[in-house]
């Protein structure tokens, strides 16, 4: 847990506060936060918790009342804010494209401010439009009013990436977009980020979006106090207090399964048999195994049927015609969430893991999932006990 101590954070907030005159409680109170290079840090919390204010403190759209902002090792609390902002991409929910400029001119805004050469700007604009999925030849000369909401937000992201900033600040960027388009934009954004590896601070009030987008999540309560800051799977497995527990809502165990993959499971043996074996042999295999169901495979080891005790010996029909067809099949990179869904529809309550050609690699039983959940919780608890152990040496060992 101390691998990040060796490298300098991209952004460091050092006891930053924001107090508005005439307000009893500060909008942001003594917040200290390190944002590592290349990570997506999501600030999430109920409305009014100060998450947007915190974001806007980083590019000094809001000036801090106290504390220091360290950007790439440099104290930027007192530098010219316009010059600072040209180094930081900024995307807001309402996008704010310039309606009187073409898409190309919008995207070229920061490169122009930085005095890039014309050909370089033109090439960069085309590259960016291409990157966000707007065909340059079609969209370059259009105006913002000619774009749909999703296209406008892509353009907003392209504009924020204009001069290739190392840091992106995104304030509920997908908040005003319909659920289907939002899901697509989120996926495209994650794909883009896996190539670009920008340092991103992302604000949302939607915990599910936070879980999906964040490498780490900071759950904030009022005055931007950090309730919990960790990887999403740790937060889901081990919410530190009632506030976090309430905020992540019900079903956190299920959501946690979305972060685990089938290929990482250790699968226990399952009774199985070739389709051309006899009933007597099938019964012997089933009797020797603790499971109630027997899996019938074809010549290529592809799962065919689920057969149980009641199906055997009643007829002379071959095994491939008995029992129930196997429908619950998952590939090794499926999430445990998807696997569980498949299992719930399966006759035997199990999911078959198959490779690309359809051959069986193993069978997932419900115990395998409950083991994972127990292990996740134990790991997360241990992680927090270790941390508490460091800061409070008197803490009781488990």
């Amino acid at each position: 847990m101390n691998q990040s101590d060796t490298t300098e954070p991209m952004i460091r907030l050092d006891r930053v506060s924001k107090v508005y005159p005439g307000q009893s409680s500060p909008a942001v109170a003594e917040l200290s936060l390190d944002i590592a290079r290349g990570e997506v840090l999501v600030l999430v919390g109920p409305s009014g918790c100060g998450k947007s204010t915190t974001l806007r403190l980083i590019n000094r759209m809001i000036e801090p009342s106290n504390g220091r902002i360290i950007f790439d090792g440099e104290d930027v609390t007192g530098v010219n804010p316009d010059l600072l902002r040209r180094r930081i991409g900024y995307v807001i929910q309402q996008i704010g494209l310039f309606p009187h400029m073409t898409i190309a001119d919008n995207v070229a805004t920061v490169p122009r401010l930085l005095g890039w050469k014309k050909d370089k700007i033109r090439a960069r604009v085309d590259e960016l439009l291409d990157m966000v999925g707007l065909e340059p030849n079609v969209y370059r000369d259009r105006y913002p009013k000619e774009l749909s909401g999703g296209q406008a937000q892509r353009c907003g992201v392209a504009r924020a990436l204009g001069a290739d900033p190392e840091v992106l600040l995104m304030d509920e960027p997908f908040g005003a977009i319909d659920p289907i388009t939002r899901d697509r934009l989120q996926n495209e954004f994650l794909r883009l980020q896996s190539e670009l590896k920008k340092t991103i601070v992302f604000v949302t009030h939607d915990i599910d979006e936070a879980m999906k987008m964040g490498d780490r999540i900071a759950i904030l309560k009022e005055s931007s106090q950090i309730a919990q800051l960790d990887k999403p799977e740790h937060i889901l497995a081990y919410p530190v207090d009632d506030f976090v527990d309430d905020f992540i809502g019900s079903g956190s165990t299920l959501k946690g399964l979305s972060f685990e993959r089938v290929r990482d499971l250790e699968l226990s043996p399952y009774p199985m048999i070739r389709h051309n074996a006899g009933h007597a042999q099938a019964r012997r295999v089933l009797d020797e195994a603790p499971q109630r169901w027997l899996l019938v495979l074809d010549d290529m080891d592809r799962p065919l049927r689920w057969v149980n005790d009641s199906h055997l010996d009643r007829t002379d029909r071959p095994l491939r015609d008995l029992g129930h067809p196997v429908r619950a099949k998952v590939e090794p990179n499926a999430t445990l969430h998807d696997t569980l869904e498949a299992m719930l529809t399966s006759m035997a309550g199990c999911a078959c893991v198959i490779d690309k050609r359809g051959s069986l690699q193993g069978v997932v039983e419900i115990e395998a999932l409950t083991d994972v959940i127990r292990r996740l919780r134990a790991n997360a608890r241990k992680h927090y006990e270790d941390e508490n152990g460091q800061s409070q040496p008197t803490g009781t060992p488990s």
Partner: protein
Amino acid sequence: MSGITNWFEYVGDRWSDVWGASWDHLMLVIQVMIVATVLSVAVGVAVRNNATLRNIALGVAGILITIPSLALFTIFIPIVGLGFKPAFIALLLYAILPILRNTITGLREVDPNVLESARGMGLNGTQRLIRVQLPLAWPVILAGIRVSTLITTGFAAIATLVAGPGLGIFIKDGLRRLGLPLSMESVWTGTIFTILLALALDLVLSTIGRFTTSRGVR
């Protein structure tokens, strides 16, 4: 029918006078409008972010427009004498309000999210004004300029009372000789050419608008 024929004869006989007066009228209006536009936009830009200053500026411009026109044309004579100058000053003071009000409205109607994103990308105050606010406010400002130009072209006919230039001379002469031959033809000449001038200027301004307004905000 004969009245109209007579009027055409009247204008035909005095064409060089009519043309000269029209030209002087036009020049007076254009000079007034250029100065009024620069002045009003500058004041509008200066006061846009301060409610008190905004109200003062609009209040003063509003008072100016309520001063009776006959009075406004004459009160500057003791300071600047007769002729072009008092007419120019009076027309200028009248021309300010529509442009100033539209400048302030136009600048304030710019979507705050657009300004937020402009600021977030590192455009400083001047760059935001010149690259974002003024271009977006321009159609509204231009609408004010057009209203102001129409008013100024009409009012400029009064300039003749302070020995100023323009088509007002035909109206004044007609009134002076009312009932005598050709008096109404003279009044109509001043009136019709003033209207034609106003329409021509409005057409020019609307054409300018078409070429200076971004397709994205039309």
